[in-house]
């Protein structure tokens, strides 16, 4: 015996094109919705991971440093600003501070890099504190340097590949004509560390005659500390600039939220259009089957049975569209990722669109809810058909 699900299914098959187009409409709306929610999840998580990979939550630089960092890229680091190492000592004494790591960036102009020369940069780091803060870094070869005064280097993977260096090789600092011994090659991280040449802090200070001077201090705050209060106090320090990574994250998220609101609006419009499409399709189907519904009622079908049948048809349409849209979003996630990266001014590493099981369930739930709501009016209309009126209209 045929059940109510089969009847609903067969009814939809009677007008294949119409049902198909309605399903496509719902699928497109679901696709946009899943991709958008996936982007929402993926972007924030990738941004968090980018910031976590830095190893610190607050970065203190000498005042004017961001501008001079741009100069470093353009002019060879001649305009770098410095702060005294004692600032690092005073920051370390703050109650909120868990760990600090002092850093010194130096760059040399290498006339033999390319046709018109290029910049080679070195990051002086403290062997005691930096590796602990950057615990995610793994080695392809070798280990971190242990002596803060040693003329040694650890190279990010890309830096090592460009310089064709392996552990035990020599590395020349052009201009200074000083040799470093390569003691470690890092694995690829997909971050700026890949292109960095790390040198012990004291050694780099000696080489560049910058004893007691730093360009940055990375700060890791204690878990239970009030980071905002701490940052406020840091802003009072003279001649330094405080970069709060949580603030940076918030700023980036604010910038991205504009794009997100626009796409969300488009998704809402798409959903509204598909709801109207569903109502229209089901309503037309009810009108066309006016007499048929009348006959069903005259044969004993109750208003509730008719309501259920029509509501089920709506649900089948919406669920099919929702499923197709979700699969489409999963299949095209990579492509969506590439497109978003082209549009956004700043995109973190890692997947920008993350679609997981809970997101799929949420979307299907939403689409089902929309289906149920949009099916109420056509189903109610069908359940109100009077058998005699319907049969007579056929005779007329």
């Amino acid at each position, binding site marked *: 015996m045929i059940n109510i699900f089969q009847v609903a299914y067969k009814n939809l098959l009677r007008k294949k094109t119409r049902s198909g187009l309605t399903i496509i409409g719902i699928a497109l709306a679901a696709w946009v919705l899943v991709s958008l929610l996936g982007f929402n999840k993926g972007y924030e998580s990738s941004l968090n991971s980018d910031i976590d990979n830095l190893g610190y939550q607050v970065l203190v630089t000498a005042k004017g440093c961001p501008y001079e960092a741009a100069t470093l890229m353009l002019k060879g680091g001649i305009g770098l600003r410095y702060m005294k190492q004692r600032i690092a000592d005073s920051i370390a004494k703050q109650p909120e501070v868990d760990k600090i790591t002092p850093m010194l960036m130096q760059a040399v102009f290498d006339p033999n890099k390319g*046709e018109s020369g290029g910049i080679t940069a070195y990051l002086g780091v403290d062997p005691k504190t930096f590796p602990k803060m950057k615990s995610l870094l793994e080695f392809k070869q070798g280990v971190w340097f242990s002596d803060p005064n040693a003329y040694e280097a650890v190279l990010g993977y890309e830096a090592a590949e460009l310089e064709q260096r392996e552990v035990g*090789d020599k*590395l020349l600092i052009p201009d200074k004509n000083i040799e470093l011994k390569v003691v470690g090659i890092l694995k690829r991280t997909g971050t700026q560390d890949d292109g*960095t040449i790390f040198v012990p802090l004291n050694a780099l200070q000696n080489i560049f005659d910058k004893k007691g001077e730093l360009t940055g201090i990375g700060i890791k705050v204690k878990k239970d500390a009030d980071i905002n209060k701490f940052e406020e106090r840091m802003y009072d320090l003279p001649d330094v600039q405080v970069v709060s990574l949580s603030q940076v994250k918030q700023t980036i998220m604010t910038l991205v939220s504009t794009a997100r609101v626009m796409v969300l609006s488009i998704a809402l419009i798409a959903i509204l259009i598909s709801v109207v499409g569903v109502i229209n399709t089901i309503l037309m189907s009810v009108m066309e089957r006016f007499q048929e519904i009348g006959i069903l009622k005259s044969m004993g079908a109750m208003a509730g049975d008719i309501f259920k049948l029509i509501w089920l048809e709506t649900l089948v349409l919406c669920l099919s569209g929702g499923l197709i849209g979700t699969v489409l979003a999963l299949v095209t996630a990579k492509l969506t990722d590439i497109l978003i990266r082209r549009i956004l001014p*700043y995109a973190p590493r890692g997947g920008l669109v993350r679609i997981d099981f809970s997101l799929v369930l949420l979307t299907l739930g939403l689409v089902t809810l929309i289906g149920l709501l949009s099916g109420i009016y056509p189903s109610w209309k069908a359940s109100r058909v009077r058998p005699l009126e319907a049969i007579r209209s056929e005779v007329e």
Partner: protein
Amino acid sequence: MNMHIINLTLILVLITTTSLFAAVGCDLNDPDRDVKRLFPESTGYKTLYLSIEKKGGKSLLHQIEQRLGDNFKGLYETADVPYTIYQIYRGKELVGYIHGVNQKGQYGGIQVFLALDLEGNVKAFYFQKLTSKYAKQFREAKFGEQFVSLNLKDFYNYDVVSGKITGPSRVEKIKNPAAEAEPDFRAALRATKKNLILVDEFLLGNKYLKYFKPQ
């Protein structure tokens, strides 16, 4: 407020995304400028991306190593390294090639580029990158000029491992610009030989294979 946002964004971009090195590989730094400099008569170029792994896999790698007289070594000299070859055109006519390879030097990486005519003869020799105490001497025009008109046939009698000439070869006329720079001098010659072999394999249909006598 806007300036504040721009500053913060700039900082994040600098600390999280800026790599102080260009993408690793052996591409010309500025192809438009460099092609015009090496082939002044050119009107355009096409870029090909090839690798030993894709072109012929292990057997091709073995053949290249035999012709080179040395094995590929270390972390970076592997069969999957992508090589960028520039085909140079004057109008629709192909007039030559430019190809570069990475080579391990004594103090850092060396990138040797060759501009070649259609027969595989060197038109110009060029260090795109050279980390060496003797970089200045190596980059003098007279050093590069010694390579002009040489081809792979000349390099078969140069042993890249011992740095010795094993038979008649015009390579013996190439002079090391600084006696202390012997490792980098040999690195430059090895890079040139490897470069010429790869061009022969990838583009010239192994035209010079007939001159190769396995040792």
